[in-house]
């Protein structure tokens, strides 16, 4: 692999991600860690992970851009950019067409509309409430005494999704209790949790063709993708590694700032 290398670090609220691009813009390495509470330490750990994966990059990282909630806490970064800009850049890089990127993040969900030249036309973020975000899935999983991965496994076996009516995560948890008490299967409840996220997303802005779903919950072929496709009535584009698109966009930004074509 040839240098110089460009690094993107995405310190999200739940997970921190990093992508290393080589001089030709190919992904040389990518890594994910739990963010935890020490943003600077996790950023350093991510860099060490990248260098362990690509020893040749040692001393050869031309530029690093940080993004995500902890973007100001990456001491070795050359700049910080919001994840909306990074998601837009990655969306354009991966699909090269007018798309709408839906990023279901840990603390918020963003819908970013790109024009046919890759420029961002508009964006929406969820309101104050956490419903419709990754945190909502985590909270609901905890209520059902499982992990986020366990929640998806349960939902895979659901057939008749329950309807969760509440906008509020706390109220939704109490709704879950009522449903359990009412004898609904935990699988159908889990499926209903995903539908609740989908409903919050589709109400944010009109969604037309070219929908790209990103974020840690957007596993290719996974429940969230399928339920969103069902709600929209058309296929959804999912990057190969949807959790990493923020970091990829940051690395692309590093490359662009460094004068390389993106």
């Amino acid at each position, binding site marked *: 692999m040839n240098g110089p290398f460009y690094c993107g670090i995405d310190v999200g609220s739940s997970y921190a991600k990093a992508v290393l691009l080589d001089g030709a813009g190919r992904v040389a390495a990518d890594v994910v860690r739990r963010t935890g509470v020490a943003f600077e330490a996790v950023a350093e750990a991510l860099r060490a992970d990248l260098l362990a994966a690509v020893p040749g990059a040692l001393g050869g990282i031309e530029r690093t851009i940080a993004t995500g*909630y902890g973007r100001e806490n990456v001491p070795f970064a050359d700049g910080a*950019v*919001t*994840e*909306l*800009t990074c998601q837009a850049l990655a969306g354009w890089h991966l699909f090269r067409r007018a798309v709408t990127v839906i990023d279901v993040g840990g*603390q*918020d969900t963003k819908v970013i509309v790109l024009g046919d030249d890759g*420029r*961002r*036309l*508009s*964006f*929406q*973020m969820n*309101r*104050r409430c956490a419903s419709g975000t990754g945190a909502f899935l985590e909270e609901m999983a905890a209520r059902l005494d499982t992990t986020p991965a366990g929640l998806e496994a349960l939902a895979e076996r659901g057939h008749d999704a329950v309807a969760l009516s509440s906008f509020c995560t706390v109220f939704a948890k109490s709704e879950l209790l009522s449903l359990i008490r009412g004898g609904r299967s935990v699988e159908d409840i889990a499926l209903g949790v995903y539908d609740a996220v989908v409903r919050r997303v589709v109400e944010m802005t009109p969604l037309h063709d070219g929908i790209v779903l990103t974020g840690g919950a957007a596993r290719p072929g996974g429940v969230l993708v399928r339920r969103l496709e069902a709600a929209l009535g058309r296929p959804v584009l999912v990057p190969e590694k949807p959790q990493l698109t923020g970091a990829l966009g940051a690395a692309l930004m590093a490359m662009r700032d460094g004068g390389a074509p993106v």
Partner: protein
Amino acid sequence: MPRLESTARLQALMLEAFRECDAAARAPQGRVAWCTSVGPVELLRALGFAVFFPENHAAMLGASRAATDLIPAASAEGYSPDVCSYMTSDIGAFRRGVTALSRVDPSITSVPRPDVLVYDTNQCRDVVDWFSFYGRQFGVPVIGVAAPRGVDAVTDDLVAAVASQIRGLVAPLEAIAGRRLDPGRLRDAVAISRDTSLLWRRVLSTGSARPSPLTFFDACIHMGPAVILRGDPRSAAYYEGLLAELEGRIARGVAAVPGERVRLYWEGMPIWGRLRDVSDLLARLGACVAGSTYCSSWVFDALDPAAPFDSMARASVELFITRTDAVKERVLADEARRYSVDGMVFHDAKTCPNNSNCRYGMPGRLAAGAGVPSVIVHSDLNDLRLHADEGVRLALEAFVEQCAEASP
């Protein structure tokens, strides 16, 4: 950011006004009227009242970040946390026995006791509930104007209806003031208000210069005299000085936001408890908020001393906040052009629906019709429990990045 030299004069003038109200409330012959911020203040000045503005007081509670801790005291008394947080923080302060005026002058220990409360519902209905609370507390009359809302064309009929209500205030106010209304004094007060208003408009219009010599955040502070000293000659004198300073900045090319690279327009209420933080954030990003609907709300083109009642009524009916969304959309498109902005920030203030114009599809229509992109920040004027620093920061940063990317 360079500090405006006029700020020292502003502080002295505001202090003077607050002390006068306090003194009037203590003097046996003094008469104090509380008035909504765009109420019929000229009538009160002409009748010799010292005038106190609870909205200004509430904004001070917000700016000093005291409001959030005070609101629960009003909630406990049955005032929902979903209604105007100016009202709930102000009532909360009263219940706790504190006032924002003490921060300006520690010798002022309470709001000035009113002899009458005078409202105009042109902004919202909450002012009636707010003033009625104090009417009950102090055992004094609460009178006012029920303004038309959702106004499309400002017709003579609407103006006449409001003018009639303002005239109807004269007799009860004369009884409280203990004097007859002198028409000459009313004309003088209206003339002073008009002069102040015209000067304030010119101050705000300097924001259309590139780079802008002032920001929305500066204007939020310097609008003080336009609100609490309307109808008082000291306000016009203050704005003559401020205008000269700003025109001097334009002549020298001094930017309120050094390195201005993105220009924005602010629609809606300030986030008083985060005014400095949001101002600093945007300045750091090179973004100048050059204009706003909020600060323009104290520009009253209609005022005419030759027809005081009718022109006061017209000024009230013409207000941006009272108008239909169609009118507001035209105003916003015009303002975006006038200030040559790259985008608009809509503040969706949870407890202020009348001043949150993004709730009925306006941002989308403005983008489609006038090509003005926008972002919505979800917060509140005074209740910081409804504000998330990270969310607001992310939205504003991302929007500035988007605007910068779109700039030629």
